[in-house]
């Protein structure tokens, strides 16, 4: 039964004979044609059909054993190339079931222009396409920012439709629920700074300035940047995935058809939540960073708690503090916008959601770093 010895009879190179004047090519199929077996390649036969362009292709299937899709896929390929050469396929010899399945496969005409040519476009074309795409996505980003500004205006005037409960949930997600990871990161960063400070300053007898180093670094730069990067990975990515999935499920379209602006409903509350929470998280991070530095400082230096605390308080000025918090507001806005924009620009598949999430995080981090540099230059010029 399932001896599964398969042989495609034409391949002996003489089996598919062209019978001179009649122009008939005989293709012999025998043995068990099963997917689970070892199927011969159809290429030689197809090549033969192409080379000889016969008038008729006759199928000879006397010794055909068991068959399944393995047979049919080859027959389909043969019939296609026969038709391409204008040859008629004589399928009368085929078993009843095979003939019917074959007829079913060819029952629907291929849609005109549906087939794709997989040719790779030339370099210049690809470069051009990429450039146009880059320009378009830059334009989209700009348009999105504009839409958000308009939407924010509506929000301030109380004319935006959104759910208060949604806003509360976003605030909770971006705020309280981020505290554990923010604590861990800030505390450790503070400790690392203190270690470096003690190592470098102690030999000069300036160990106490470790307190200044940790406090200024945390308040001016590190806490805002670390928190922002943390939130880009945590909240920005989640915004992109949430909105992207809604996009895939046509939930965004459902909002639009109800006359609600999706930016009002989905984007603005999320951006507001993150912009509100970011400075609070940053302030919290600054405090924990300083505490982390203090644990190291107190254990490695010969100073008391009061001395260290006073040194820290003297180092941190109000300008530093406000400067750091302003940065965190900017970062929060950028991270949330990057996440929402990528979500809204998401394509229609599960894979697209993943891509949108990745892009949201990358874009968020790039924006953080670039804007941090710009702000630092501005601060220096302002003398803060």
């Amino acid at each position, binding site marked *: 039964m399932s001896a599964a010895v398969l042989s495609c009879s034409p391949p002996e190179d003489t089996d598919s004979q062209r019978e001179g004047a009649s122009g008939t090519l005989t293709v012999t199929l025998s043995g068990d044609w099963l*997917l*689970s077996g070892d199927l011969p390649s159809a290429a030689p036969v197809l090549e033969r059909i192409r080379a000889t362009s016969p008038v008729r292709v006759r199928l000879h299937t006397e010794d055909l054993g068991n068959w399944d899709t393995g047979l049919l896929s080859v027959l389909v390929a043969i019939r296609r190339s026969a038709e391409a050469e204008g040859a008629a396929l004589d399928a009368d010899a085929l078993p009843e079931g095979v003939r*019917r*399945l074959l007829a*079913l496969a060819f029952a*629907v005409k291929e849609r005109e222009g549906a087939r794709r040519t997989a040719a790779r476009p030339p370099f210049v074309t690809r470069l051009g396409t990429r450039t146009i795409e880059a320009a378009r996505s830059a334009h989209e980003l700009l348009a999105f920012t504009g839409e958000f500004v308009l939407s924010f205006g509506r929000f301030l005037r109380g004319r935006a439709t959104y759910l208060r409960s949604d806003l509360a949930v976003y605030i909770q997600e971006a705020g309280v629920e981020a505290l554990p990871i923010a604590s861990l990161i800030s505390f450790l960063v503070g400790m690392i700074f203190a270690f470096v400070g003690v190592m470098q300053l102690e030999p000069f007898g300036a160990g106490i300035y470790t307190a200044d180093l940790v406090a200024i670094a945390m308040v001016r730069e590190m806490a805002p940047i670390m928190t922002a990067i943390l939130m880009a990975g945590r909240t920005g990515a989640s915004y992109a995935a949430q909105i992207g999935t809604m996009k895939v499920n046509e939930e965004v379209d459902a909002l639009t058809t109800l006359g609600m602006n999706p930016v009002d409903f989905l984007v603005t509350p999320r951006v507001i939540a993150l912009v509100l929470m970011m400075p609070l998280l940053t302030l919290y991070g600054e405090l924990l960073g300083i505490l982390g530095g203090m644990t190291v400082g107190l254990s490695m230096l010969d100073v008391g708690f009061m001395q260290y605390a006073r040194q820290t308080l003297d180092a941190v000025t109000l300008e530093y503090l406000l400067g750091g918090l302003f940065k965190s507001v900017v970062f929060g806005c950028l991270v949330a916008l990057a996440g929402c924009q990528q979500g809204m620009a998401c*394509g229609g*598949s599960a894979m697209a959601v993943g891509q949108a999430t990745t892009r949201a995080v990358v874009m968020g981090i790039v924006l953080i770093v670039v804007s941090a540099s710009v702000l630092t230059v501005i601060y220096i010029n302002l003398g803060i």
Partner: protein
Amino acid sequence: MSDAQSHIVVRDLTLAFDDFVVQRDLQFTVNRGDVFVIMGGSGCGKSTLLKAMIGLKRPARGDVWYDGQAYWDADETEQALLRRRFGTLFQGGALWSSMTLAENIGLALRQYTDLNAAQIRDVAAYKLMLVGLSGFEDYYPNEISGGMKKRAGLARAMALDPEILFFDEPSAGLDPLTAKRLDDLILELRESLGTTIVVVTHELASIFAIGDDCIFLDADSKTQLATGNPRELRDHSTNPIVRSFLRRGEHEEPSPA
């Protein structure tokens, strides 16, 4: 628990989500080469029953026997071997979005057969032709319409010529002509390959056109109300709910004087 005729045997099957029982005490047999229809109103647990049959949801009680082998009693390796004999068409097609249609169909072939890339492509082309999607090999799922996705999902389910094909709402969302072609295809697969086919549907036209046997699930009593040939159930069932369902709620006799 099996003879030559019966392919799938379901005994004392109870389906539940935690404490919430969806269906209880289901008993039925699917004969080899039959088109078996699972029907019932929305939310009665049709799809849940299907999930229990294809190994996605463990039933609370009872088991499903395939050729005498209990699925839920088997270990993981045996279950995987059993599952390889199934082909499933999910409601939305469930195509893998990162792959083209040809790759979707080719994945199982690459995994479980010794075919080379060109042969796999030929098989994929043939399967797509069967469902009327000739020429769409290199499209990604998000580039085609919902009905086309469903048909491509069917092509994928058929990739390995499974012994048993499970269809979850195959004709929902298809135009009447395509739905009719799908019915023809189902019958053809049964005729020429001897495939046993289990269909979850509530499209009456389809039920009467293809169903050899059926089970009717009821959401209120949470169990099966009837089994048998759908045309006979329509004409002779003594259960008013079944009759009403199969006659689209028309209670009168089919040919009032």
